[in-house]
């Protein structure tokens, strides 16, 4: 990906990421300050008299970077939760994996574990 995609795609993806964020917060995403800011920024830079607007490219690059940030954080967190978040299994759970149960020894084991 040596070049950015169209600004519309970036905006759509950004809004989708913001919807994920607001789903966790429990509030509608249109209330979020980030949504308002993005909408104003994209609207303000849409109409320009110059054919090759450097400011437009700068804004688009910033939006694409923010999109990359939101998306990577979400994916990274998902991977972390799946693979690296749980601790060790207890001995009972480990035995239960193969259908065994730990022995009950009412008198104690007789030695320190």
């Amino acid at each position, binding site marked *: *990906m*040596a*070049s*950015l995609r169209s600004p519309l795609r970036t905006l759509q993806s950004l809004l989708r990421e*913001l919807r994920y*964020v*607001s789903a*966790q*917060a429990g509030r509608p995403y249109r209330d*979020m*300050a*980030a949504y308002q*800011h993005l909408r104003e920024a994209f609207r*303000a830079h849409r109409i320009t*008299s110059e054919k090759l607007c450097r*400011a437009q*490219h*700068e804004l688009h*690059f*910033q939006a*694409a*970077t*923010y999109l*990359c*940030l939101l998306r*990577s*954080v979400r*994916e*990274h*967190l998902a*991977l*972390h939760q*799946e*693979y*690296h*978040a*749980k*601790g*060790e*299994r*207890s*001995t009972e759970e480990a035995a239960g994996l193969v259908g065994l149960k730990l022995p009950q020894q009412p008198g104690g084991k007789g030695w*320190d*574990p």
Partner: protein
Amino acid sequence: MWRSCRRLFYARPPQTPWLCLTPPVGGPSLSLPGTARTYTPPTERKRFYQNVSISQGEGGFEINLDNRKLKTPQAKLFTVPSEALAIAVATEWDSQQDTIKSYTMHLTTLCNTVLDNPSQRNKDQLIRAAVKFLETDTVCYRVEEPAGLVELQKNEWDPMIEWAEKRYNVEIGSSTSIMGPNIPARTKDTFTSHLASYNMWALQGIEYVITQLKSLILSMGLIDRHIPVEKAVQLSRLEEEYQIQRWGNVEWAHDYDLYELRARTAAGTLFAHLCSESSTVKHKLLQD
């Protein structure tokens, strides 16, 4: 292999995730003597606020968590110079669900580093640390075999070096020896004076990106908006990508590292851009 070796040489203390309040009381579960110990991850702080909002103070923009002002780990008031940055930080805090995972809040971490400056580096030391990376820049270190990797490095990294040489009017070159390329002093001076033109906030962001990507040239490509973040990360991890294509992808290691690197690089780049820009909107009247 090279990149992981370099990680050993240039071990910087990793950016510890900062938290504004005391660190979570937790740790591996304490056990009574005589019972088996199993590892459980440390308990995280619960999300204690409902609303996150921004307000403007004298020093800049501040973040409010439910009427309480956010503070840095050293208890200074958290102020940022740019409104867009404040909004992004507020979004980070807002996206925490149930528990506060400070390792996902990269922009907050960067702001805390700038405000507290725990390693107490001034601008010159920061620039010197950044330019020092040029001597061991990833894109300048080439292997001699396997042939596929040599070809890949030539096709992907040579254009970046050419772009940097043309853009900054310097000589860099690449090398296959373990000592690395010989960077002339004029090149280092050019980069030093270029980096000196950024303010302290932006410079911290730039230096962070350089540390993450292990390459000054790729970071300059990002700062100058020449390549997007995904491409820069891919170029930085070129050898790993080659080995993944050869031997297969391991999701819990490769993808995990990839997304973490992308998140940190994107955060650093965004931080540098937001802190160094000043935008004005000129309204032109339509003449019929």
